[in-house]
């Protein structure tokens, strides 16, 4: 039987009372906007306070999913979102693990490299975008000069949509690699050194140590990183705004939501704020994140139970 440590009588309610402000703030800040978004998705809201809002039922969903070529463009954006998620997750996860293993060695300068790899995380998307726009400036920027030396060139963010898209993937990974690395480092530091000593005494090679000791015991960090990478990359939009703007063939769902919600789509100077429509698109993205997130979590949890018991 679990012993209750918070006293008897009125005192046992204290922990719940202490939880109330947190729950209230969570409901207000996290759940409130989410619920409001789902309600707005059934309206023609513009986001302008005082402007009439009409209940239009499923019209926004119908338009997003089934209306003309625009809906097919939305599916293309959905596809790009998944491609972005796949590449960002796999590369960022792998690189993060490698970097964490390297900077977790007891060598000189590891703290410097940890700081170096983590630094981009503390920069905002605008600063990150500015750094890379300058770095990849095609007319005389540093990378352009290096490519020129090898007799080649690139338009970088201004290039063909697939090329521009690939560069955004690279910047996204650079910007978030530090978080993945830190989570892995924290996982590595929880592995008892005796496990490594025992493995080495048994004559295990470096790869065998990694495969049979490090990797299984890193499972909680692996799960956390995979989930964070999947969810974070599905929701990405800021770097697309800063680096590419509204450009055909490059939009992901997150950026499309921002662009339609705040009148940033091209084609008309009179673009209106379609926040009801953007809310419907947000719900679609939410469902995508939910499905993929839950599936990933289920698989990872089973794996964790299998490995760690």
């Amino acid at each position, binding site marked *: 039987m679990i012993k209750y440590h918070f*006293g008897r009588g009125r005192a046992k309610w204290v922990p719940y009372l202490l939880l109330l402000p947190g729950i209230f703030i969570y409901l207000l800040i996290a759940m409130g906007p989410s619920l409001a978004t789902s309600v707005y998705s059934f309206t023609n809201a*513009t986001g302008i306070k*005082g402007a009439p809002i009409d209940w239009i039922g499923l019209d926004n969903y119908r338009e997003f999913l089934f*209306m*003309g070529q625009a809906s097919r463009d939305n599916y293309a954006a959905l596809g790009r979102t998944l491609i972005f998620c796949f590449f960002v997750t796999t590369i960022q996860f792998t690189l993060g693990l490698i970097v964490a293993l390297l900077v977790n060695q007891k060598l000189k300068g590891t703290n410097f490299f940890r700081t170096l790899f983590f630094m981009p995380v503390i920069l905002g998307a605008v600063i990150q975008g500015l750094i890379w726009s300058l770095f990849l400036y095609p007319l005389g920027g540093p990378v352009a000069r290096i490519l020129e030396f090898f007799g080649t060139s690139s338009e970088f963010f201004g*290039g063909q949509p697939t090329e521009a898209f690939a560069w955004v993937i690279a910047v996204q990974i650079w910007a978030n690699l530090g978080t993945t690395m830190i989570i892995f480092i924290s996982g590595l530091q929880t592995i008892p050194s005796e496990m490594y000593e025992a493995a080495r005494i048994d004559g295990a090679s470096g790869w065998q140590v990694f495969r049979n000791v490090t990797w299984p015991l890193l499972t909680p960090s692996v799960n956390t990183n995979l989930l964070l990478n999947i969810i974070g990359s599905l929701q990405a939009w800021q770097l697309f705004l800063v680096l590419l703007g*509204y450009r055909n063939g490059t939009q992901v769902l997150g950026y499309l939501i921002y662009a339609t919600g705040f*009148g940033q789509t091209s084609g008309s100077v009179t673009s*209106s704020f379609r926040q009801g429509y953007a809310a419907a698109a947000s719900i679609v993205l939410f469902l995508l994140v939910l499905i993929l997130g839950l599936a990933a979590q289920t698989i990872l949890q089973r794996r964790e139970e299998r490995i760690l018991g």
Partner: protein
Amino acid sequence: MRKTFLLSVVALMILSVLLSACGSASTDEESVQEPATADQVTLKVLVHQNPPMVEFMESFNNNFSEKYPNITIDMAVVNANDLSTVTQTRLTANDVDLVDIFGFANAAQPYMKNVDPPNWQTLIEAGYLLDISDQPFINNYDEATIQDAGSYNGKVYSINLGRVSYSGIYYNKDMFTENNVTVPTTWDELVAACETFSAAGIPCMTAGGKDGWPIFVGAYGLIGALYPDQDVLVEGLWTGTIKWNDAKSLEMWEKMKVYAQDMMEAGASGIAGDAAPGRFASGAVAMFPGGTWYASAIEASEPSFEWGYIPFPGSDNPDDNKYLFGKYDQGWAVADKSTNKEAALLYLTEFSEPANYQAFANAVGFIPTQPTATLDTQIGQEVAPYLVNFRVGFEQYWVAPKGAGQYANPFASYFKPFGTFDDPQELADKVQADLQSGLDANN
């Protein structure tokens, strides 16, 4: 036990105090704007980023505050892309007195089915902009401007401060002379000029391709040469009498391909919009298609640089190339919920004084909307011969039908290297199909 309980209660009380402190802070924010006092007023002004305009406004604000010491100006400057979002946020929060209305364009037309009203229309209908119909200063502006870019349902809500042309080309006078190239007046002459420059190792044109729009805006002259009445063009597209893939339009796409692939310099797709005027002024290229608003940036980059400005010669018939297409640019509107209306109207009265307006037009390079103002700047002199043929361009009329695809626009930037298309016919068919898809979805 009692001690634990007491400690918990104390902790709860501290939390409550903290939370109520947060609560009172937000209440304060809601009532940011205190009622104006007769003694001291802080007038909150919102403008978009346009360096010469911001510089002028700062100087105007200083003069205004000197003349009216009880009025302090608090001017916020935001990026043009963010202006509508910030305008909306600050108007709804009652945190601004005067806003810069950018793109007060034509409302949706009766033949446009199932389109959302433009943002400015929603702001008026929601009661955020003050009716200024009876203000004497609106008489300082020409009637057509007040009608076309300031009125809604018979009332005036905005004074527009100037028109800009975007269908012209800046050219480097010295480079033209050195290479014996005459200023082109037809499409063939433009192509020949570019070939001459290319043969001499000089890139023909540049534009801020990284921002996307400078590429297609630079080619609006090509649309204008074929469709000089752009309101008729927009109606034709909506009603199906004009197609983006008919024989006439195909000629436009073929020329756009030449413009995007042969005339633009390599690497233009990576140049930011605000860097392009400086690149042109540095003598790196011979021409720069773009709007009149770039003139002051070119002058600021290289004050001694010799340049000229001509309408984009999109046709082989010089008569088709006499038009300048453009739009109404920035305008002022007063927040209806402002508690400083009197000061805001005084500010607009002062701004609209012919001498002040003239100084503004000189600084910014707008084509004036006050009939008494003159075009004293170089860009003013350059466009003066064409002003009789100034026309409002496509983008101020166009509203895309819901369901239309992302290619339903006449944009040269769809061609490689800026976009993915190489074949004009294929692109023309795609653009029309994307538009048709939206038109069909609304029928």
